[in-house]
């Protein structure tokens, strides 16, 4: 893929009350190998969740894999919701092995589905279809007289951003009256430490604590060299699939350091939008020497690690430990968590009073460590 071509972004999902993810997993891999960036929402997802995610992510198409029946109604609901939210330029395709019959297919095509793949379709044919059908953005049919959907407007703006321009000043933001100044929280750490789960738990608590809270999430996943990317954080972030949360998944597209080249500009846009109380920025899994956030980009940085970092010597090498405001030892149910916390405190020595070291088990429902983390990043 040359630099000139922006990769096609597609959202894939399995409908509500359906857990058949074997086919979609295979197709996701094939699409990625064909250079497509796939935002995977996971299984058991409502039409509402799918459409919200598609609009926020600015995808060109939605691929739905349905094996549990009710596909005629489900696809129709997705298309209807897209239209009602003014996103009729987003294509819809899908399949369901043998469960979708030829007569279903005719009906679904009439209702606006671009293509249904039957059992036995070669994978190449599917990837070729996506690459040709969605190669360029579709023209949007004239929107209704209603004001444009705020998620839609924000998402379109993010899609147009180019990394070259230095700031977002002068961006055409038609904000509403109530303007909020969001707190931006950068979350980083090695892969597998549980950053995604931790953010989702923070979102759950923030939404619960304040019924008017609105949250944005900027999440990053690595691109595969010369290919697309699997942006799968949404599938894990179950509480963040909410009308009060705006989430955007970015592929690094070869940019080093844990973020994408457009991250800075995306953050400027999200900050300027004026409706968010908090913005979480999640980096890809980083190495010891990385310090992804510039001090002007985020208000607080959280470094998340698991107790399994190796010897005490390893702690000396992690640059982020010196930069982060809060260091979280997640997965504190694992052996070695206590050792980790005390070794970290020792490493900080006299600074230990200003540097916060916390133990969390984000995977546990209602973990008090996560409560404490929210308090620290929001109030200190």
């Amino acid at each position, binding site marked *: 893929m040359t630099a000139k071509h922006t990769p096609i972004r597609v959202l894939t999902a399995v*409908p*509500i*009350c*359906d*857990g*058949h*993810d*074997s086919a979609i*997993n*295979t197709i996701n*891999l094939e699409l990625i190998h064909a250079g497509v960036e796939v935002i*995977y929402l*996971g*299984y*058991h997802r*409502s*039409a*509402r969740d799918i459409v919200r995610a598609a609009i926020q992510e600015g995808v060109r198409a939605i691929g739905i894999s349905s094996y*549990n*029946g*009710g*596909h*005629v*109604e*489900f696809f129709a*609901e997705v298309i209807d919701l897209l239209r009602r939210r003014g996103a009729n330029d987003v294509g819809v395709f899908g399949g369901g*092995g*043998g*469960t979708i*019959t*030829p*007569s279903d297919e005719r009906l679904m095509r009439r209702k606006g589905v671009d293509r249904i793949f*039957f*059992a*036995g379709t*070669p*994978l190449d044919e599917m990837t070729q279809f996506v690459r040709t059908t969605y190669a360029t953005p579709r023209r949007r049919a004239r929107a209704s007289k209603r004001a444009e959907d705020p998620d839609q407007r924000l998402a379109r703006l993010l899609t147009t951003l180019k990394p070259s321009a230095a700031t977002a000043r002068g961006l055409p933001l038609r904000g509403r009256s109530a303007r909020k100044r969001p707190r931006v929280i950068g979350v980083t750490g090695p892969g597998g430490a549980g950053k995604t*789960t931790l953010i*989702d738990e923070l979102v759950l608590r923030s939404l619960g604590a304040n019924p008017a809270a609105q949250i944005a999430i900027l999440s990053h996943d690595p691109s595969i060299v010369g290919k697309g990317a699997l942006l*799968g954080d949404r*599938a*894990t972030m*179950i*509480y963040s699939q909410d009308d009060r949360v705006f989430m955007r998944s970015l592929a690094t597209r070869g940019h080093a350091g844990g973020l994408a080249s457009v991250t800075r500009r995306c953050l400027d846009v999200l900050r300027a939008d004026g409706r968010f109380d908090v913005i979480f920025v999640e980096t890809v899994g980083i190495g010891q020497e990385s310090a992804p956030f510039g001090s002007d980009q985020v208000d607080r940085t959280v470094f998340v690690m698991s107790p399994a970092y190796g010897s005490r010597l390893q702690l000396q090498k992690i640059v982020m430990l010196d930069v982060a405001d809060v260091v979280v030892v997640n997965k504190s149910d694992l052996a070695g968590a206590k050792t980790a916390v005390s070794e970290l405190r020792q490493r900080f020595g006299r600074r230990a009073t200003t540097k916060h070291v916390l133990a969390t088990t984000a*995977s*546990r*429902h*209602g973990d008090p460590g996560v409560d404490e983390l929210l308090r620290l990043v929001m109030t200190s």
Partner: protein
Amino acid sequence: VSILASVIDSVRGYGRFVERQVRQARTDARFRGQLMRRWRSLHAGIATTTTPTGLVLPRLALPQTDEPAEVARYLFGEGPPGEFPYLNGAYREMYLEQSELKTEEPTRLFAGLGLAEDSNARFHFLTRQQRTFRLSTAFDGPTLYGVDSDHDGVFGKIGEGGVAIDTVDDMQRLFDGFPLDDTRFSASMTINAPAPILLAMYVAAAKRRFGPGVVARLRGTVQADVLKEVQAQNEIIFPLEASLRFLTDMVEFTTQHMPRWYPISISGYHIAEAGATPVQQAAYTLSNGFTYVQLFRERGLDVNRFGPRLSFFLDCGLDVEYLALARVCRKIWAVGMRDALGADAGSQLFKLHTQTSGRSLVAHEFQNNLTRTAIELMLACANATNSVHSNSADEPFTTPSERYVRLAAHAQAVLLEESGLFKHMMNIFGGSPGMQILERELQRAILDEFAEIDRLGGVLAAITHRYQRSQIQAAAHRYESQIYDGTRPIVGLNRYRGDDESQSLPEVHVVRTPRKKKQLQVERVKRFKKRHARQAGRALDALATVVDTGGNVFAELIQTVEHCSLGQITARLHELVGHYRPSV
């Protein structure tokens, strides 16, 4: 020592024990004498049978040898059917005609479609000419995920792929007219994440019709295997820890109060359907089984009380491993339960239900599916499965139509009743060189998988490492690639493709639930909630107290379901324990 490590040790140790017996049979005259006396008395105890063509045959086929070392290898290494280590079968006579020892009716009648009354009618249709009523129920998507039919966005799924059950009233309609209190009746329910709630509805519905005394007589199975949901099937709604607690509460209750109930069916079927190889299916299913045993023991339950109430469910496809896979599972389970967990004879049996492979069915020239299923059925019976379900040929498109359900059920009758393969002699295939080679290789490969899971810290730790999921996904990907590059032949698809006419998908009769019925179900659950609006809040509060104070949630659910729908109950439980977070 971890549970899997001690199972590996006990199975390997048992292998060494067998070799010692073989050597002793060669070198120790006294031992040899005892052994051969046992062998002769075993032979003497076998009755004969006469085939319709006049051939006289023994009812049990044994190796044709009087070489003491070989006799020792057979008796200790395999065991005749019904004897430890049960390689050849859990029971002495299984499919034989006119058997007084017959313990199992192998045929299960699986159904589930539309609303409760539709499935009820299907059950009555299927059992019209049957001696026993062994009913097996499939539920629709909303029920499997614990949401009500009036839940936002699920309308299209009501009654599709299974029956819609929202309330105890629906459950009562589902089994209307069947003698739930009769020993010839059993109900099996394919339900996992909300299994305790659905079983509570079943118990409550039975009590309404037959009084409180019926509870101890209820017979049946709930699948309730949440570990395989996390590994393969994805129908899980509560975090794993909470799911396992609700399950253990249910097992504790049924062990004490419902002695004829099977509270869990440890399932490899969905693991295989998600793409696992036969070895992965066996290894994950067995390791899950040993993990459940360990969990229930940690609760303080006696392995010899709950052990006999564990049952298993495997897939049978067309790969060569399926000639012997379940046989090896039976042996590993017996040895592991006896030697690693100290379980007595009643808890060593790997009681197995087999279903033919849904994944092996193909939409193109779908009548070939009749042949595929017939071969799989034969493989399943060569493994001496205790019961079997054969899929319908039209399942790639639809909930089976009556025509193909009937043909599928008849396939079993043709195999077991018409054909002479299984009805005259028990163990007709056991001991063939090919089967023995497979058994040896499969056992080795399964133990290797155990060792890998054990290295990761056991089944639960391996799950957090996504080990089983990633292995299954990799195997699924390989399977698909093999179909596309033609190295895995699929007749009618990548070989012997017919003309365009036969390639076009057939317009089969598709079973769908009409819109009107879906609306009726939505109205029903709404009416139920309205009718019980006053009591529901109090019932849910009582349930919440039990959850918070560590009481038995299942015992309380039997009360809760009287006033609350499935979706109301799961919503409250979600507030208390959270949602399952998928690992992609």
